[in-house]
């Protein structure tokens, strides 16, 4: 009978205690194993808000569990809340994971090939349930991640937290900033629209400016995957976006956060004496324990941010998709994403090797070594006047350069093209495409009719914009000086029913008499500019709102 010995402590427990008490004890034991140290009583005591018993069982998971061992057991009271760090590092991490999750979901319906990438985007936007929401959230999350990471860096700089012994933490942070910027930028190419192609073409051409020339040529080829962007280049940027950069990001995030935890969260400058570092010797009466206080706050930040992201993308924000990439046309007013505008501004004023390679190199290397240069022991604002002044000057210069990077600075085309570009821009949908298709009235309309009350609101609005831009162009001081104004300029907008459900809209500007009524929009005409757009009833540029 005892050939096979059968062990079952649980059955023994049932025998001795009865079914229900033994089962409850078993459940309790399972919970304690899953939480690496907290049983049901401990958890309920936390949820009730009881003070921690002594010895405190709530610190056990920090020693025994994988996930909690990465988090500090307690924070100093001064840094446990939203102020003074604004938890920007936490939010950066949040967006890193948010982007990873939404990105992986988008990968289900995306193939990195110029043949189908754009079609995949249309499918995601128009056909896949929640597809547009996922793309909007991924894009908005990317923009916010750049913003949050930059603010995180600025805040760390202002409060001087990068001073000894935290210099290396800052260094890895700059690497993470670069990873963030390139992650966001590499995502640009993937939809294979006009914005993608030309933003990334400029980026790769900057690599080409590296001296000596042979290095630049090879760097350019490596980035483009050929003499011009095509299937190879798209695949490279895709792999960089979904594999290489996230991998580098995860590794440096690990190093960065490890350093944060071993050095502790630095107190605000006024919170401790100069030269002291309280973070590793937090007095017992100044501690806010991770469980339950900090984790509750973090769950709250998580819930609110996720809710706001979803709400923003459902009601307000929609990621743009431009026309299909066209290697033969660079759209007017092409600009870099906002966080690279300062670079585009610099590139407009000078040499591409100096401003496109040397200067960014100096800026990012300079950022990495700041903590090793600013070695004064005090983090008080009053003791850091030079450093803080230089920091704010840098911010101001970046703001000015960013303005110079916009299309308003030094790239405006001839006044006739600029007028039409206000109605029918080449890098965004603009007033015409976003207008109500049903209200585009067939006919020939002059800008002077903008105040005609018998027209519907859409036509009044479009003609109003057209009229205003035309008058604005006529009174432009620069073109008056160069005597190139649209003298006697006249604007006409023709709307025709082209096919069933398709309207053809022609903007025609004439000046100095124009070519005459018998030659409308003929090629090579003088004193005339024409641009045509076709709009389908279902184009849905207004995006349903």
């Amino acid at each position: 009978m005892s050939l096979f010995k059968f062990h079952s402590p649980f059955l023994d427990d049932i025998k001795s205690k009865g079914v229900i008490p033994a089962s409850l004890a078993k459940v309790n034991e399972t919970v304690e194993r899953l939480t690496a140290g907290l049983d049901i009583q401990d958890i309920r005591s936390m949820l009730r808000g009881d003070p921690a018993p002594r010895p405190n069982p709530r610190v056990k998971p920090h020693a025994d569990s994988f996930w909690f061992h990465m988090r500090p057991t307690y924070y100093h009271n001064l840094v446990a809340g939203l102020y003074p760090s604004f938890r920007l590092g936490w939010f950066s991490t949040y967006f890193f994971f948010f982007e990873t999750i939404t990105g992986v979901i988008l990968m289900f319906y995306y193939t990195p090939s110029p043949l189908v990438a754009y079609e995949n985007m249309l499918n995601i936007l128009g056909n896949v349930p929640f597809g547009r929401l996922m793309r909007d959230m991924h894009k908005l999350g990317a923009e916010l991640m750049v913003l949050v990471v930059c603010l995180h860096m600025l805040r760390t700089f202002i409060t001087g937290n990068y001073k000894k012994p935290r210099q290396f933490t800052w260094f890895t942070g700059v690497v993470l900033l670069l990873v963030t910027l390139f992650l966001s930028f590499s995502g640009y190419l993937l939809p294979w629209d006009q914005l993608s192609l030309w933003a990334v073409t400029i980026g790769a051409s900057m690599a080409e400016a590296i001296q000596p020339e042979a290095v630049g040529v090879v760097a350019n080829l490596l980035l483009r995957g050929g003499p011009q962007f095509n299937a190879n280049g798209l695949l490279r940027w895709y792999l960089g976006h979904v594999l290489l950069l996230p991998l580098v990001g995860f590794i440096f995030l690990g190093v960065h956060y490890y350093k944060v935890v071993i050095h502790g969260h630095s107190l605000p400058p006024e919170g401790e004496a100069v030269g002291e570092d309280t973070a590793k010797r937090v007095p017992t009466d100044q501690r806010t324990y991770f469980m339950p206080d900090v984790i509750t706050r973090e769950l709250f930040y998580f819930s609110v941010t996720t809710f706001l992201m979803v709400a923003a993308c459902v009601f307000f924000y929609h990621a743009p998709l431009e026309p299909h990439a066209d290697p033969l046309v660079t759209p007017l007013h092409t600009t870099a994403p906002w966080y690279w505008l300062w670079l585009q501004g610099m590139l407009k004023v000078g040499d591409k090797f100096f401003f496109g390679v040397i200067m960014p190199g100096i800026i990012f290397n300079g950022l990495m070594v700041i903590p090793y240069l600013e070695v004064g022991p005090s983090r008080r604002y009053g003791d850091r006047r030079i450093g803080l002044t230089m920091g704010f000057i840098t911010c101001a210069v970046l703001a000015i350069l960013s303005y110079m990077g916009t299309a308003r600075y030094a790239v405006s085309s001839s006044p006739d093209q600029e007028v039409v570009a206000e109605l029918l821009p080449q890098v965004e949908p603009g007033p015409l495409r976003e207008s109500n298709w049903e209200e585009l009235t067939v006919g020939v309309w002059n800008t002077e009719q903008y105040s005609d009350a018998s027209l519907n609101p859409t036509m009044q609005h479009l003609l109003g914009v057209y009229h205003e831009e035309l008058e604005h162009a006529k009174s432009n001081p620069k073109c008056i000086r160069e005597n190139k104004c649209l003298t006697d300029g006249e604007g006409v907008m023709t709307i025709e029913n082209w096919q069933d459900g398709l309207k053809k809209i022609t903007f025609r500007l004439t000046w100095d008499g124009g070519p005459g009524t018998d030659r409308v929009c003929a090629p090579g005409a003088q004193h005339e500019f024409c641009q045509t757009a076709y709009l389908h009833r279902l184009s849905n540029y207004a995006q349903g709102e």
Partner: protein
Amino acid sequence: MTRREFLYYLWAASMALSMAEIGGAILWFAVPRFKPGEFGGVFELDVTAVPPPDTGPKAFDAGRFWLVNLGDKDVTDANLKEVAGLPYAEQQKGIKALYKICVHLGCLYKWVPTNYRFECPCHGSKYLPSGVRIGGPARRNLDVFVIEAMDASGKVLSKTEARFDGQDGTAIDITGAAKLRINTGQKITGSPNSVPGVA
């Protein structure tokens, strides 16, 4: 140093060397190989495809070039004052095949008839029909492809040459020519042209 320590250093050095070799192999692997394809080949055009003088350029997308026919008006363009004193301020009449890519950062510059010049939509470089840079961040004139003008029998009458130090292609006279051969595999880069004070 003991023999053991020495052998460790030797081992470390050989590991570093093989890592460098692997890195080099990966780079070599990643450098794309490509055939020049259509672009990079020779395009043969009839002279009737050439636009009349002073009428602005004509685009040839497959060969990625603009064909310009510089006439009296083009060579005396008022904007040439921007480069006064520089060698290429003196312009030649004739035809040129301008490579369509902006020499700044690779965008496609476009022809703006109202301003009668090329303008780049990305960073605002400006060029005359002759390819001379007159503004913006570009640092040289436009690149050109070599054109050969041939008569009906195939004899080469004139050919694009470099004007200065192997740079800046000449405009060629095509009187009497019947055909043009534009070699998009042979590019002459524009002369350095960075005029202080011109934005």
